[in-house]
């Protein structure tokens, strides 16, 4: 990440977003603005407002045995003005109770307001997500 991205509002917001993904006890209410929008363009889901986003995180953390540990191969593209950035990365994690490691390639388009996330468009591979979900369901059954 470039120094300017770290210091920019978008850089600060993205740092908070990363922390939220990696720390299962982190609260989305300190990361997103109240009327934030989190979209997943490849599967059409749209979460509106920090409460809906927080509920999604809570549900995911309760149900998913995936524990994310690192944003690897991170490349950040800052935008002029400092309120927007694009980031590409491999999100690394493990499945709790196993040695199984997972790597998910993702791209986010993030817009910030005063260091908080105002909107995120999160792109990931739905084919990989589907396969992973089936694997996790299989392990639980």
């Amino acid at each position, binding site marked *: 990440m470039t120094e*300017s991205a770290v210091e920019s509002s978008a850089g600060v917001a993205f740092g908070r977003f990363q922390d939220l993904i990696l720390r299962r006890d982190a609260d989305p209410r300190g990361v997103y603005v109240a009327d934030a929008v989190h979209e997943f*363009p*490849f*599967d059409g889901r749209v979460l509106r407002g920090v409460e809906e986003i927080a509920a999604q995180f809570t549900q995911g953390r309760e149900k998913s045995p995936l524990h994310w540990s690192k944003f690897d191969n991170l490349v950040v*593209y*800052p*935008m*002029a003005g400092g309120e*927007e950035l*694009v980031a*590409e990365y491999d999100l690394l994690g493990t499945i709790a109770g196993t040695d199984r490691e997972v790597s998910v*390639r993702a*791209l986010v*388009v993030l817009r910030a307001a005063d260091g908080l996330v105002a909107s995120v*468009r999160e*792109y990931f*591979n*739905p*084919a*990989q997500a*589907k396969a992973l979900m089936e694997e996790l369901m299989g392990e639980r059954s």
Partner: protein
Amino acid sequence: MTAAEVFAKTRPLIMAMDMPAIFDLLADDCVVENPYAPTGMPARLEGKPRVVEHLNAQFERTTMRFEAVDSEVIHETTDPNTIVVEFDMLAEDTRTGAKIRRTMVQIFRVREDKIVLWRDYWNPLALSSQGSG
């Protein structure tokens, strides 16, 4: 030319599938990547000859006809040589007549008016459900 300018030049060529004109815009050491490519499709192509070979083969067999671009947002980064573009490609499958909307996000980098990186994220599940191309 900036990346945005080269992209603006490239877009109508893509819509028209004007392959020779597109190839003229590729740097000799260009890289084309499809990070979410399904099995059987290369995730990375290095060098203009490989890219030309692959794109020619792809466009020869495709049944897609591009019709329009919707919801396009061009993100100009602090590096004028790099942009990120989000858009939906609207197309028709000429074999079935089905109308297709494919959401895409691309990283586009240029050097000396030529494309050096074209990284293309799209949903492989949509590809399998909507036909080839």
